[in-house]
């Protein structure tokens, strides 16, 4: 008897404790006019970008004493795990900085708030539809929704050594008349001399790069039949893979030792003249500006053209958690944070492209200095990447595509073998998500 009483007492105590916790959590919600506080998880990491983020948050806090925003520093390395656990625990940050590939999964699991109809008209019209497409996903229950505001996009350009181009008599192309892949291969051959390779392909994480560039030849890698997605590797998809492989092993114009490198790793060799051209994302310009030795001349070359110059685009986004207790205030904060003036600041801080049309026409975004004009012009080639809409893409990427592409570019398997793995193993992975 006494045991049971004790057990009951203990259980009551624990119940009271947990109830106390949860009511403490919800305590600050409620009536309009009362000051509320929002948690803002930011993933900015470059110094200038963190400074720009904090500056905008301070500005907001000064203008809106009723809606206090707390800046929380996150990291791209572990944001997925951090968000999944906080979503499951029911206490996520109110405003979440992430990118569109991640949003697809979160949206279909119901973690994010559908923002359609909640955003002010001037913000909606300032961002082109192509960018909104990168954040429009199924809600997992048959509907569609807008699960974030896209604000920064990246495109793939080529950063080149000016002196080596001049010496070989290669003129710098304009965004209106870019190089085709064939021209690029010819020029790589011209630039390969002695110890210098024409190009370095850093392909440590090859998947997104290959998939984004594959659209140059119309390669989508996925086909959707209703709601069911399957992998496809046909002639269009193989084009870019084959061409990069040829540069490595047939033309020998690409340095094979750069293969295992991450995006920024070839920079020391690039400054030393080991490679003349470096295909890279626009943000790499920042590191070149900061680290290049004095007297080093470089130039940004517009994206290459296959059958088109289209590139797959993903965007960085701000979203509101479905569990947020102050969704309206959070949406208001996002609308302020991403107005065109602030977007120009953020884009400059991260050396990426703003989605806002007004921000893109800002003089600082169109200057020839540091290739900003070329970078900003490349935004017109961005189309929504097909893989964004594929449920299970993340697992396909890490379990199937990354090893398969790494082995293909290391010349350990043939293109046919790589294609077969991507399709067969890939469809097995996707099947789990199609159930």
């Amino acid at each position, binding site marked *: 008897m*006494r*045991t049971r009483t*004790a*057990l009951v007492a*203990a259980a009551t105590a*624990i119940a009271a404790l947990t109830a106390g916790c949860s009511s403490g959590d919800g305590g600050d919600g409620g009536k309009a006019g009362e000051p509320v506080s929002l948690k803002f998880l930011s993933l900015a990491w470059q110094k200038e970008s963190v400074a720009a983020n904090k500056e905008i948050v301070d500005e907001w806090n000064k203008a809106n004493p009723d809606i206090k925003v707390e800046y929380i520093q996150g990291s791209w390395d572990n944001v*997925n*795990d951090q968000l*999944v*656990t906080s*979503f*499951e625990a029911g206490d996520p940050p109110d405003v979440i900085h992430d990118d569109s590939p991640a949003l697809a*999964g979160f949206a*279909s*699991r*119901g*973690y994010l708030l559908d923002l359609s109809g909640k955003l002010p008209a001037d913000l909606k019209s300032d961002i082109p539809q192509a960018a909104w497409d990168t954040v429009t996903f199924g809600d*997992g*229950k048959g509907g569609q929704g807008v699960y974030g505001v896209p604000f920064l996009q990246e495109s793939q350009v080529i950063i080149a050594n000016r002196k080596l181009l001049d010496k070989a008599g290669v003129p710098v192309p304009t965004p209106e008349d870019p190089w085709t892949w064939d021209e690029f291969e010819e020029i790589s051959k011209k630039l390969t001399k002695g110890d210098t390779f024409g190009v370095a392909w850093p392909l*440590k994480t090859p998947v997104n790069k290959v998939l984004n560039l594959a659209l140059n030849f119309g390669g989508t890698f996925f086909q959707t039949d209703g709601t069911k997605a399957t992998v496809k590797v046909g002639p269009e998809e193989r084009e870019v893979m084959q061409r990069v492989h040829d540069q490595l092993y047939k033309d020998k114009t690409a340095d094979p*030792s750069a293969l*295992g490198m991450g995006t920024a*790793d070839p920079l020391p060799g690039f400054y030393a003249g080991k490679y003349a051209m470096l295909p890279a994302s626009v943000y790499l310009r920042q590191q070149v500006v900061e680290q290049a030795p004095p007297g080093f001349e470089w130039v940004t070359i517009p994206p290459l053209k296959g059958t088109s110059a289209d590139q797959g685009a993903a965007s960085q986004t701000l979203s509101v958690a*479905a569990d947020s207790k102050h969704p309206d205030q959070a949406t208001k904060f996002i609308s302020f944070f991403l107005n065109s003036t602030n977007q120009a600041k953020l884009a400059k801080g991260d050396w990426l492209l703003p989605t806002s049309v007004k921000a893109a026409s800002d003089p600082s975004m169109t200057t020839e200095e540091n290739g900003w004009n070329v970078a900003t012009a490349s935004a017109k080639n961005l189309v929504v990447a097909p893989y964004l809409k594929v449920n*299970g893409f*993340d*697992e396909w990427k*890490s*379990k199937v595509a*990354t*090893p398969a592409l*790494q*082995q293909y570019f290391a010349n350990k398997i043939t293109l046919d073998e790589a294609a077969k793995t991507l399709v067969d193993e890939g469809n097995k992975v996707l099947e*789990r998500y199609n159930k």
Partner: protein
Amino acid sequence: MTLTAERTREPAADRRGRPKKSRQGRETLLLMLPALIPVLIFSVGPLLYGIYLAFTDARSGRNSVTSFVGLSNFGDLLTDGDFWASFRIGLIWAVSVTVLQFVAALGLALLLNENLRFRAFTRVLAMVPWAMPPVVIGLMWRLVYHPNAGILNSTLQGAGLLDHNVDWLNDFSIALPAVIVVGIWTGMPQTTVVLLAGLQGVPRELHEAGHVDGATTWRRFWSITLPQLRPVIVTITSLDFVWNINQFGLVYVLTQGGPGGQTRLPMLFAYEEAFRYGFFGYAATLGVAIVIVVLAVLGLYIGRQMREVS
């Protein structure tokens, strides 16, 4: 706790019969309650919940509906090539780390057992890896293995053993051995300490008797030290095996299971399934499967050792 309870209960029962016994039993239970509640809430509860999850299709998400699926997760697991690859890597890792760690630790323990100068100091020094959290060890070794700035590459090149930088943790064939070396280094202190304690329990007279009979050092080690150490060896190697196969933090920091899954230990695999892809039910199945495997391996190993002893 149970032992003392048993001991106090039995004589009382003998003397006064049943009713007294059950009342005392109830009192014991009541006294144990404060200690029992946290164990039930924080250990037994989650464990049972984990086992329950293994039989459901639980997924992450606010709009996911969990239903009971019986053994289908286990069926999927048996046909999952990625699981078997990860399981194979887990076994290679656990067996090689445990064995090599044991050999290295035994050597170190024998050395520290000798009457050397600065013995106290070296004994403390041998404990250093134990004082570090796995995440710090992982970060430190990542710097050691760094392809361009790492001390390992520059040392090997300085000694003329290597002519180009090796990316230790990203090379398909070197990554696993490189991680195993870190595993051995990390676990050596506790193995060394336990073996050292065992060595000090070996009676000196046995060695003296062997010496008098003219046995060589090697012979004395083989026929006296090792058999005397046997219970200690069985204990520490089986504990090491369990620790190693369940290792997570160290490898997560070092490689996150890469490159291309070459160092994806079973626990990393389960973690990815749960927190990256959101298949909680399947990940729980993996956990249960590993528990079964560990119990089976230990049962066989310890059972055989016990039989040999008796």
